[in-house]
């Protein structure tokens, strides 16, 4: 197992290097000048404009800027935001936990609902449940996130008053940030009401963010299960007289899990992208909102650093998925040797 993980880690080196180049290039390819964006309607004389670009280090050749950035990355320094002048890594660390917390809950919700729905739909193939579940999941998958979020807010928050509209926690609670994860921090502060408020605020955004992965997981589980249920060893298990529950959830599901885990891994990656919309709707102070603001202001260091860190997180999740494959299926583990 350690050798397996090591080989996967080594493959990461060129990936990370490529990511730095991509992050740098993407940030620079967007047209626009941070100084102009900052000044808006206001005039600025050319000398002062040049002085500001110089102060921000934007007048140097691109290659020099890239190498400078690469050197910074190697020593763990991602530079400072052009706007707030705060270190990029520090800003990332204050917004990242919010995104992780939301994503974890969203994925957990997607798995908790998607997996059983997929299994039941496969077992009762062609039933009304199957038809309903697959139609609903296709609808969920196609729903524009922005619209879906507003719809839920209007129904559950404005009309029914069951959930808060937006935010991470009621503004009255001022929980000291220790880990950045509000569910954890409220427990550390031993404030039950604040914990409930944080959980309450998670409900709608987690549903919205979890909808697409849920639909994917449900459909993928169903098709993988259908395939496995036809297999010889399932017939053998049934012939042995095992309970239907054992056959489905132990013998079939574990074999069906490989494609499902892949989908969950990939979904976690797209989740960070989907989070941008969800975070904007729900005023969620996460990475997505932070990056969108950086694009708007042409804040290159934040863009470069942010893209790199998010990409790094996605890579880590996929590494984890690779390891999970090995755990689920010894054949993959051995083949990697």
């Amino acid at each position, binding site marked *: 197992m350690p050798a397996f993980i090591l080989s996967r880690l080594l493959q990461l080196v060129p990936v990370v290097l490529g990511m730095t180049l991509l992050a740098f290039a993407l940030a620079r390819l*967007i*047209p*626009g*000048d*941070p*100084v*102009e*964006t*900052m*000044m*808006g*309607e*206001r*005039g*600025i*004389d050319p000398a*002062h404009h040049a002085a*500001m670009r110089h*102060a921000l280090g934007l007048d140097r050749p691109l290659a020099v800027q890239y190498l400078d950035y690469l050197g910074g990355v190697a020593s763990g320094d991602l530079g400072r935001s052009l*706007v707030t*002048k705060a270190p990029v890594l520090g*800003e990332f660390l*204050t*917004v990242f936990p*919010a995104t992780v917390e939301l994503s974890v809950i969203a994925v957990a919700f997607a798995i908790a609902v998607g997996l059983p729905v997929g299994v039941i739909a496969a077992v009762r193939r062609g039933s009304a449940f199957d038809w309903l579940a697959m139609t609903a999941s296709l609808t969920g998958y196609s729903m524009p996130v922005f619209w879906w979020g*507003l719809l839920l*807010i*209007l129904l559950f*928050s*404005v009309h029914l*008053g*069951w*959930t*808060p*509209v*937006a*935010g991470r926690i009621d*503004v*009255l609670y*001022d929980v000291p*940030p220790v880990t950045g994860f509000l569910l954890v921090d409220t427990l550390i502060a031993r404030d*039950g*009401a604040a914990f*409930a*408020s944080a*959980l*309450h*605020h998670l*409900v709608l955004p987690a549903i919205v963010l979890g909808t697409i992965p849920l639909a994917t997981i449900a459909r993928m589980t169903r098709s993988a299960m259908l395939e496995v249920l036809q297999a010889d060893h399932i017939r053998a298990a049934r012939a042995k007289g095992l309970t239907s529950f054992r056959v489905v959830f132990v013998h079939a599901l574990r074999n069906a899990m490989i494609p499902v885990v892949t989908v969950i891994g990939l979904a976690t990656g797209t989740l960070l992208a989907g989070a941008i919309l969800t975070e*904007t*709707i*729900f*005023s*969620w*102070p*996460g990475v997505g*909102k*932070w990056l969108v*603001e950086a694009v708007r202001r*042409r804040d290159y260091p934040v863009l470069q650093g942010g893209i790199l860190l998010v990409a790094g997180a996605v890579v880590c999740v996929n590494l984890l998925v690779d390891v999970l494959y090995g755990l689920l299926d010894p054949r993959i583990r051995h083949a990697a040797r």
Partner: protein
Amino acid sequence: MVVRSLAGALLALTMSALVMLARPAAAAPFVYCSEASPEGFNASLFIANTTFDASSRNVFNRLVEFERGSTKLRPALAESWTISPDGRVYTFKLRPGVAFQTTKTFTPSRPFNADDVLYTFLRQWDPNHRDHRLSGGSYEYFNSMDMPKLITAIDKLDDLTVRFTLSQPEAPFLADLAMDFASIFSAEYADAMYAAGTPEKIDQEPVGTGPFQLVGYQKDAVIRYKAHPGYWEGKAALDPLIFAITPDAAVAYAKLKTSECQLIPYPNQADLPAMQRDPDLVVTSQEGLNVAYLAFNTQKKPFDDVRVRRALDLAIDRDAIIAAVYLGAGRKAKNPIPPTLWSYNDAIVDTPYDPAAAKRLLAEAGYPQGFETDIWALPVKRPYAPDSRRTAEMIQADWAKVGVRAVIVSYELGELLKRTKAGEHQTMLFGWTGDNGDPDNFLYTLLGCEAAKDGANRARWCDARFDALVTQAKRTSDVGERTRLYEEAQVVFKQETPWVTIAHSVVSTAMRRNVENYRIDPLGGHLFYGVDLAR
């Protein structure tokens, strides 16, 4: 089936438990759904309204300030002032006994005095000042108001008297000092933070003399303030004051409906009718101190010919634009300054919508068949222009009727600003929101010859007659004389038509019915001192 109904019951139970538990017990705070995170807490380093709301407008004071809800000046940290007969020396008598805020990191040992005024201005003015380079050290407004050249000396005469000496008479100087960049910092706090090795803290954890003090800030989430107990005008009624950062206007509206916030800054125009019908909400509207216009690049053919400019002015149906783009929440503009500003020349006759006359004028100018041109449109919503692109499309259609074929050009904002500053456009849709309630801030800043050099004058229009009038008005302190000069300048403007003046937009704010005494700030700020919440 059983499983499903059980799960349903469980869900309902959890939900209601959460609703009960999550309801906070303490007294309701005043929550303002602000639209974005501030860039920082030192207004002199930035130019965004959001940043001013979070810092200068509620946490700090200036020597002179605008009266709430107007652009009239009133004494604030300066009790009184005298201006020398030649208009070059301003002497301020400071208000005694004004307390700075006491925060976690700083306890002031003395009240506000001349040292604080000197620190505030010297930091921005003197490149050799200890803190000049702090936090990036670019003072956008100070520079763009030409302060480095204008101010020649700042002297402390005694603890409560400060003297500014200018290089030339400058009538708008007093109004300039009421702007956000001139917010007074504590010199004692700056020294303390410098000694502690954390000088940049003065820009992140502000200490001012204002009505509210910062208690905590979480980026993109929340800014917390409490009322400054020793505020010199008396403690604020709202305590605590919370900014809940809510970027989406539709979501802000939903939060307003559920009382998650009491006031929202920029409601969607389309939501206003529903808000006005809602018995729990109040919508207040006021004409903003702004103008939206189309600038002709007067240095390019055919727009160097005033007949062409007038013809294209005649060809635009601005009433249709007000109805379709502003949804009625705008007023047709005939002058480059809004009617709420003093010296507005109401005697000016507005250009009618007259395509036939436009055609005749074009033929006279040598373009009977029209010509090809472009309209550069802003890619983003601005306070004066809800939809620049849509306006461009309507103008395009109007011009087509007189034979002028225009293509619409749009770039990302920064790129568009850069290219139009370089004069790549033939015509451009643009606008302006006033900074200090002085006509100089529109007429000289946007249309003077100096502005044709630094790019703010997108018409690249330099008219000797107009420039002489607005420059003279800048050098005269007599308001009656200045009014006369500006009124005349508007006559020249109309004759020369460097712009098509399109609209002055109406600014709206929506709030819960129990919010009392809120006044819309014509300068675009959101100020919470003097506001009350009926219980």
